[in-house]
């Protein structure tokens, strides 16, 4: 296998991994605060269409990303009001958010089908990325670097900052956090908005970078993979990074296997690989941690201080 092929495979892997990593980093923070938001796929789509619409009308991809983050956060807050203020069931509300995002993005995007924007690729001078090896480092969209930075920021925030500790406390024992005077609901709202913003940016990576256009349901179920990834990572940012790249490599293999006409296995086998692997990996991880001790103790439980 030539060097060029390896490098282009790695570039593909990075491209595939980035949106999953972004969305999963956001969801990790949400789940650490004790909330399970299953609506990642919907928030990603809302981000994808908003990012595209704004980049298309303003000719500015940066504004597109910003708008995608805002739209993702706004849709997440709809979920937040329902589960935090109204104490609604988180699983069902998250599903509703996913369905809502699919419908809303289709509706907003109807006027943008068939349009294209210039792909939002490298920000570094072109000379830097001419050599294939250097392209591996400098040849990506800014969103790729943002994803890597955000994992590190989240890891540092959760581990080494006071508010990170508070957020974890809220997720592990909401009553104690409440009784020492922290606003459980307020912190969860912030976490949910952050998760939405990250999912929104993840979505915009599809519509601004991978294929710089809008297509219905273009995130193709990656939001659900991001959810599996959080469990796979046992809610640890470091493992999230490796896990995301593990899935990314798998999906790249699928692409290459398809392209090279790997005829002894049907293409549908490769296409279902990431999902089968996700199930398998969940089983391996969950089997090792039978008690589920890694999950935040309050995950998915509503907090109604009035009771």
């Amino acid at each position, binding site marked *: 296998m030539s060097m060029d092929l390896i490098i282009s495979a790695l570039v593909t892997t990075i491209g595939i991994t980035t949106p999953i990593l972004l969305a999963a980093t956001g969801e990790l923070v949400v789940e650490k605060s004790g909330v399970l938001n*299953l609506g990642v796929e919907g928030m990603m789509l809302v981000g994808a269409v908003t990012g595209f619409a704004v980049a298309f009308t303003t000719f500015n991809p940066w504004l597109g990303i910003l708008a995608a983050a805002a739209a993702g956060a706004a849709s997440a807050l*709809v979920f937040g*009001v*329902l589960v935090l203020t*109204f*104490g*609604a*069931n988180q*699983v*069902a*509300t998250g*599903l*509703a*958010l996913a*369905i*809502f995002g*699919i*419908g*809303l993005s*289709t*509706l*907003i995007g*109807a006027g943008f089908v068939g349009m294209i924007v210039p792909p939002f690729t490298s920000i570094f001078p072109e000379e830097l990325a001419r050599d294939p090896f250097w392209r591996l480092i400098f040849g990506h969209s800014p969103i790729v670097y943002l994803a890597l930075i955000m994992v590190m920021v989240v890891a540092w925030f959760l581990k080494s900052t006071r508010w990170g500790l508070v957020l974890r406390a809220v997720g592990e024992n909401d009553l104690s956090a409440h009784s020492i005077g922290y606003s459980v609901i307020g912190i969860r709202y912030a976490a949910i908005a952050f998760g939405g913003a990250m999912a929104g940016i993840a979505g915009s990576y599809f519509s601004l970078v991978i294929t710089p256009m809008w297509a*219905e349901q273009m995130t193709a*179920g990656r939001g*659900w993979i991001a*959810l*599996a990834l959080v*469990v796979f990572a046992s809610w640890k940012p470091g493992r999230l990074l490796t896990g995301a790249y593990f899935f990314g490599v798998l999906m790249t293999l699928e692409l290459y296997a398809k392209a090279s006409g790997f005829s002894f296995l*049907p293409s*549908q*086998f490769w*296409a*279902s690989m990431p*999902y*089968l692997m*996700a*199930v398998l990996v*969940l*089983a391996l991880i*969950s*089997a090792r*941690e*039978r008690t*589920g001790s890694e999950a935040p103790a309050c995950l998915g439980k509503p907090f*109604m201080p*009035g*009771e």
Partner: protein
Amino acid sequence: MRIRFEKRPEPSNFMRLATPVGAVLLTMVLGALLFDALGYDGQETIKQFFFTPVLASYKWQDVATKAAPLIIIALGLALGNTAKIWNIGAEGQYIAGALGGAFVAYLTPDVTSHWIIVPMLLAGIIGGALWAALPAWLKTRYNVNEVLSSLMLVYVSLQLLSYLIDGPWKDPNGHNFPQTAAFTDAQLLPRALPGTYVPPGLVFAIVLTFVFWVAMKRSIYGFDVRVSGAAPQAARYGGFNAKRTVWSTLLISGGMAGLAGILEATSQLGQLNLGFPSGYGFTAIIVSFLGRLHPIGIFIAGFVLAITSVGGQVAQTVVHVPSASGGIFQALMLFLILAGDVLVRYRIKIVHSASKAGAAA
């Protein structure tokens, strides 16, 4: 002045019935505003979505056609939702059921007896149940979250369908289209009402609604499921077997989705092709909640969701909104019904800032 929730001593039965109705009405209002904001004629959109399917004499058959699978799938899902076992993968089980039934059809092209439909339906139920068995096994054996595993298998089932109809089961006389051979006359289920399009599935939906209603109300199993969801600790001390609840709710809901799948294949399409996956498995989750997880409620809710789904097609041609935007109404309805749950369990108190008597407590 602020709003405070005060827990009711008993959940309100009035609110339990009123909130789904309120959710549907409020969905229309919010939906109209949303479509107006996006530059469509909101009022006209609502009219086409919710009223044309009911008022146009020829549309009610379409509504019944869509309601039947939704009701059948949602009846099964409600069981799991009651026990708080979340089967999100009914769409995959629906496809697996159709594949199960189609496998029997594939093996028996020469059988002319109409009784062949019975093994086909049974294979549909088994196919759906098997597809749900994997999440059940992973949940009970390895403690894998059933939400994710059942959902991942939806994607796998789509690929399996695509593989089979473009591979081993491909119609040799199908001009190379990815589809199975058409079912023979013996393998097709006739319409429920001769001369109409009313599907045989509706008869199944009516009978099963009744069966589930009686079973949930009268049987120890129904009680077991309710207690497992409402008070898992109590259920454990009471000697209920948690694993049995996981297995039974997933197998039953998978089997029901599989039944809906093969019914759809053998009465609507008459073969399997790439147009088969319909999203019924996802919409049925909304049906089960809108119906308040009660069989009679689900029967009504199935028709409400079917109306919006037919209305989506009407609105697409009349007001030119994308048909998928029907998902917005369905999701809004689910949002509102879930928010409405709070009214069942809590009273809303408006507290004036002057009277802070209760705040200290």
